Structure formats: structure tokens, C-alpha cells
């Protein structure tokens, strides 16, 4: 039985052009990342990761306290805080704000949480036009696709693809030059910026002590989104908090480096509330939406809580041999790559796509690059355990469970294990000449579809060892133990 996810994998693996595009793009990110975290460039890199992990751990462990602090701080600066229990509450809040201020056009900067709550669809349905202003997101919006990668939404599109898309959707002349493509988008977006009633952003960090929303970017569109329109709505998952502004010294050093291989991104904005008297720029009204949407459930799970430390840098995807092959759209849910593989089952429920946490060789490349040191392989293992527990509860005769029960029984009975090996050998050696197996039986068939499988050795190690030692006083373990005791 193959799931929707497995079908997606099959299709993606067959698309060589796509594979090449993904590999080239993720390689570029990874190589740049390696350059800027190299020991001679950033000797304190590993310490920064430790620090980042500890700050996140502390914040998440005391999230209730920090959330209340943020609320008080934002309000004291004249901003509004809206608590959103789930996706529906969050989109309704944005729509209500738009209605209240009679907003028809909303410019948006890149935000994964807004994707998670499917904000754009909801806005459109309610007569509010959302316009993505990050170039990659804008491309994805035109193509009506979800982001392909956490930090590079249109990573899978070549410039030829983008040129075609612009011809089709914007009616411009075809030009593949990246500068020209950027100019086209810029012309369209500038008009939108000038006419927008509302700017919607995400948040890379929310500083608890000051209530400031911190956003990093390279294109300058976030600056425009958050300052040009009358209303600014920042949508943030509740896990985005950090205690103090000084903590940014750690996170800003890591985020740009891990994400795009930049020592620091071109722009870093600190936004705290509406424009105050005497200030020239800034919105009339500022709203901070704090979105739960499954996060408190993750928070309640001490073991997997660290999933919430993620700062969405995308580094884990760039090095993941699975993401690099199957690409972002194969993943169910909003988040792709290793972080998606551990986040989606926790958000959407274990039964949602039970294959997802198993689609990993547990190579650990993700954990090695994660700037906040989330132990992603360990989270995958924990999810696998939870999923199998659930399946075994539903089906007392779960074949895999029975197989492992039998396996465990044998593995604790060394003589049975020996005899099993011996018999299997005797049985098999009657059939073949110890060459590698080219077509395996049922369970082995998926292996032998593409690879040969080794035959059992004519004589196991234990037999060979016994033969070798028989002259030199080999003693079985229990006897050895007894001898030691007696001595």
C-alpha cells in the first residue's frame, strides 16, 4: 500500500530536471553556509549553537511567563495583541481587522505561519486582495503554489520557468535575465505598496522585554510592508519569543549564516507598535497575532518540545538527502524538509501521514547543521515509536509488530539464534551457491528490485570462531563468568 506521500516521492524521483534544480540551489546554500561558519571565520560557531539552544529551551520552558510579558509590552506601546487558538481564529482575526479599517488591499511579506493558516485563500474569499511582496513568494502566488522551501519559496523554479510565468500571468515580454525579472516584479509591487491599506508580516523573533517584532530580509520589501500601509498586522507563532534584545546577538549571527550563508541579512527591522508622535514612518495601528494552532500540544510533550526551538532557517532541508531528492512539494503540510517531517505529524496528528517520519535513513545531517541544535533524528525516532504504538493498539495482529516480537524472542535466546542461522544456511545452501541474491522473496523484493542481497555466510562467525579456538581453550560465556567468580 502506498500513501499519497509515497506517490509524490515516486513522481519527484522521476523528474530529473527538477532534481537538478533542487540540487544546484541547495548546494549553493550549503556551500555558502559552510564558508561562513568555518572555524577560521566564526570560531565561536559551536558555542553560539549551544547558546541558541539554551535560550530557546529556557524561553519555551517558561513560555507562559514570556507571552504575558509580550502582551503587556505591546499594549503599553499602543499596539494590540490578539490570541489565536487555531488557524480559523487567526484568519478571522485578520479579516476582522481588515473590515474594521476598511482594508481592501493587503501587502504581505514572507511568513510561514501565514501559509500554515492558509491566510491568502481566506482573504481572497472575503474580498481582500493579498499580494506577496517577497520575490519568491510573489512567484509562488502567481503560480498558485505553496512554498517549496522554508526560506526559498520558488527554489524549484528556473529563471526560464519564472520568465514563462510572468509572460502568462502579467503579459510582459519574455526575458530570462534575473535583473529584468526583478524589475518586472518591482514595477507591479510598487503600485501595490502605494495603494495597500494593510501590511501583513510574519515575525522572525518577538522580543519579550520590549514587545518588538524582529524581521530579517534581503529585499527591503518587509520594510515597505510594515511601514507604508496604515495598518500593520504581524502574525507570529507563540514559539517565536526570545527573552531579551541582547539574545539577538546570538540568533542574528546564526540565522543568516544557516539560512542563506550570509554573515547577516541585508535588513533587520525592529518594529514595536504603531507610529508615535513625532515619528515620520510607521502604521497608525499595530496588531500582533499570537498563534497557537497546535503549538501548545507540542509544548505539553516534554520529549518533543524542542521542535518548537526552530527558527525556520531551512539549513536542515539544504543538507537533507531526502529533501534534496523529493523536493518541498512532496511533503504533506506546509513545512517541508526534516523540520516538516517532525513538525507536521505533531501539528496534524500522527495518523495524518504515518510514512513521513519513516522517510529518513536517520543519517543525522539535519541535526548537524541545525543552529538551535534540535535533535531531529531523535524526534523522528520518538515519532516512529508513537506511530507504531498507535498502530499496534488498533491492530493486535499488526504483522510488523508480530515480526519484531518474534525477533526479540529469538534475539534473547542465543541457542535458538544459532540454530536459526544454521538451519537457514542449510536450507539456503541447498538452493544456491552462495552468490548474491538477485530476486528476493516478498519481504526482500523491494531491496532486490535495485540491489543484490548478500547470501548467508557458509559458516557464521560463531562457528568459525569456535573452530579457531577449539584447540586454544575457548570457553562459552557462562562458563567464563563462573570461572571468574570462582577465582
Amino acid at each position: 500500500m502506498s500513501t499519497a506521500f509515497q506517490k509524490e516521492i515516486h513522481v519527484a524521483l522521476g523528474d530529473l530536471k527538477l532534481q537538478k534544480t533542487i540540487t544546484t540551489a541547495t548546494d549553493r546554500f550549503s556551500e555558502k553556509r559552510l564558508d561562513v561558519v568555518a572555524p577560521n571565520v566564526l570560531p565561536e560557531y559551536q558555542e553560539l549553537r549551544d547558546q541558541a539552544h539554551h535560550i530557546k529551551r529556557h524561553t519555551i520552558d517558561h513560555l507562559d511567563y514570556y507571552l504575558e510579558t509580550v502582551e503587556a509590552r505591546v499594549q503599553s506601546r499602543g499596539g494590540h495583541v490578539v490570541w489565536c487558538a487555531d488557524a480559523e481564529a487567526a484568519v478571522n482575526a485578520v479579516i476582522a481587522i481588515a473590515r474594521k479599517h476598511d482594508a481592501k488591499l493587503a501587502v504581505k511579506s514572507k511568513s510561514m505561519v501565514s501559509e500554515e493558516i492558509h491566510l491568502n485563500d481566506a482573504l481572497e474569499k472575503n474580498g481582500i486582495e493579498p499580494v506577496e511582496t517577497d520575490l519568491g513568494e510573489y512567484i509562488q502566488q502567481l503560480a498558485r503554489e505553496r512554498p517549496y522551501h522554508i526560506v526559498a519559496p520558488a527554489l524549484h523554479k528556473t529563471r526560464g520557468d519564472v520568465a514563462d510565468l510572468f509572460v502568462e500571468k502579467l503579459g510582459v515580454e519574455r526575458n530570462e535575465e534575473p535583473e529584468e525579472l526583478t524589475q518586472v516584479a518591482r514595477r507591479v509591487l510598487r503600485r501595490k505598496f502605494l495603494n495597500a491599506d494593510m501590511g501583513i508580516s510574519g515575525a522572525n523573533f518577538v522580543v519579550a522585554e520590549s514587545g518588538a517584532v524582529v524581521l530579517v530580509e534581503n529585499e527591503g520589501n518587509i520594510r515597505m510592508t510594515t511601514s507604508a500601509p496604515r495598518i500593520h498586522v504581524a502574525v507570529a507563532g507563540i514559539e517565536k519569543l526570545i527573552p531579551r534584545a541582547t539574545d539577538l546577538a546570538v540568533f542574528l549571527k546564526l540565522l543568516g549564516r544557516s539560512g542563506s550563508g550570509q554573515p547577516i541579512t541585508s535588513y533587520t527591522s525592529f518594529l514595536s507598535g504603531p507610529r508615535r508622535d513625532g515619528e515620520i514612518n510607521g502604521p497608525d495601528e499595530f496588531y500582533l497575532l499570537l498563534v497557537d494552532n497546535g503549538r501548545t500540544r507540542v509544548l505539553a510533550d516534554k520529549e518533543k518540545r524542542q521542535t518548537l526551538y526552530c527558527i525556520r532557517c531551512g539549513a536542515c532541508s539544504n543538507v537533507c538527502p531526502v529533501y534534496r531528492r523529493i523536493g518541498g512539494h512532496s511533503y504533506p503540510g506546509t513545512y517541508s524538509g526534516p523540520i516538516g517531517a517532525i513538525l507536521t505529524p505533531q501539528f496534524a496528528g500522527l495518523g495524518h501521514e504515518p510514512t513521513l517520519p519513516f522517510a529518513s535513513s536517520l543519517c543525522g545531517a539535519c541535526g548537524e547543521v541545525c543552529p538551535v541544535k534540535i535533535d531531529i533524528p531523535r524526534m523522528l525516532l520518538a515519532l516512529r515509536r508513537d506511530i507504531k504504538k498507535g498502530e499496534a493498539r488498533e491492530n493486535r495482529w499488526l504483522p510488523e509488530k508480530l515480526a519484531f516480537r518474534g525477533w526479540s524472542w529469538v534475539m534473547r535466546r542465543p541457542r535458538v539464534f544459532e540454530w536459526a542461522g544454521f538451519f537457514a544456511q542449510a536450507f539456503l545452501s541447498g538452493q544456491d551457491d552462495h552468490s548474491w541474491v538477485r530476486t528476493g522473496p516478498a519481504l526482500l523484493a523491494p531491496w532486490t528490485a535495485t540491489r543484490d542481497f548478500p547470501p548467508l555466510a557458509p559458516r557464521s562467525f560463531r562457528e568459525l570462531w569456535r573452530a579457531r579456538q577449539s584447540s586454544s581453550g575457548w570457553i562459552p560465556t557462562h562458563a567464563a563468568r563462573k570461572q571468574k567468580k570462582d577465582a
Partner: protein
Amino acid sequence: MLPIALERFMSTRVSLFVTCLVDQFFPRIGLAMSDVLERVGYECEFRRDQTCCGQPAFNSGFTGEAREVARYFLKTFEDADHIIVPSGSCSSMIRHHFADLFHKDTGAQKAASELGTRVYEFTEFLTSVAQIDDVGARYEEVVTFHDSCHALRELGIKSAPRRLLENVRGLELREMKRVEECCGFGGTFSVKLSELSSDMLNGKIQSIVATGASSVIGLDASCLMHIEGGLRRRGLPVRTLHLAEVLASR
């Protein structure tokens, strides 16, 4: 009298945990390992009661079954001085993941973490405990070395095998591209998501072949089995060898 931990550390008696895979499929790797250890002055024992470390169940989500086997492993090796394993993956299972398995059983957890300090991946033991980089081996071939994921990332083994290879007479090591990328084995992953696993193997084999090496060397029989299976299917004349086999040859 020396404290027991130190006495154990100084001991020249080693206990081989050959892993279920080597025992049943690749005994030559276990024999090569014991040859090398004996050559450098260690006395090897093989506990016939040993079976598996429990990793197959653990990685597949069957922690209860893995725990039973892990407990059995602890019992089998409780009084061994050094436990030497020709696998980074199984070493890491014992050293790191046993503790996770016994998180509700402090007694077993203590025993597991104590035992974990006596478990060594083969090359790790040679270079850091025995302090030997040169075992007097000779292997006159151009080889390439595959970093297996758990040895590399969970045990931090990168330079040890290369130092050992450097001292093999007549051997030339040619590093492959993307040497740290997984070969796609991943236990039951290789059959559960075989298409994906095979695609990863494909990349690994291309990197191996591009070096022009006549052999590919590794630290884990499982990765080697996967790589060899792919090489054989393609009819490529590249040999797969465990590092112990290279070190045993002269």
C-alpha cells in the same frame, strides 16, 4: 589496588561484539578485526551468548522489543572490559540510545551508560585507547573511504580511519565527492522506501566510481552491504571492504 574502571581501561582483554550482521553474513570482517586486535597485543574473547544490539527494532519504532534485546545485551556484556564493535551504528546504539530506552528504569539506565563507556567502534579503539595508527598492514590499491553516518555524526569518527589508512603500505586514498552523504541504507528504510533509498545509493555509487578507486572502504557492514549490492547489480568491478579487512591484510 586500581579502581575497577581504571583497571578495566588498562586491561588488554577485549570482548568482540561482532553484530548480528557480521556474524551471519560477513564473518570475515569479525575475523579480520580479531586478527588486528591480536596483532597489536590484545587478547580477544567472543561471548557466544551475544546476538544483536536491538537497533533494527529501535529504528523501526518498536522500542519495547528493542528494550528487551538491549537489556539482554547489557547482561551478556556486563563484566567485559572493552567491547569492540566493527560498526559505528551499533556502537552508537549502545552508547547513546540505550539510555533513551531505559529512561524509566534508572538502574538499567545507569548500567547502560556505564557500559557505554566500555563500548568502542573498532577504529576508535585502535586510535584512542590502544593509541595505534599503524598496524603494519599492506594493501596495494587505490581506495576510497565512505563515512558512515552514525560513526561520523553520532560518534564523531572522521580522522581515525583516515589515519589508519594513511599508514597502510602501498595504499592510496582518494576522497570521493559528498563523502559525508548517506548511502541510503537506513535499516528498514531501505525496503520501506526502497525507491528513495535506491536513489540515494545511486548518488553514492556515482561518487565512488568517479574516484577511479578499486575498493571502497567503510566502518559498517550494513552500509557496505548496501553499496556492494548496488555495485554488483550494476556489474561494477569495485570491491567493498571493511576497514578491518584492509588492516588485517599484509
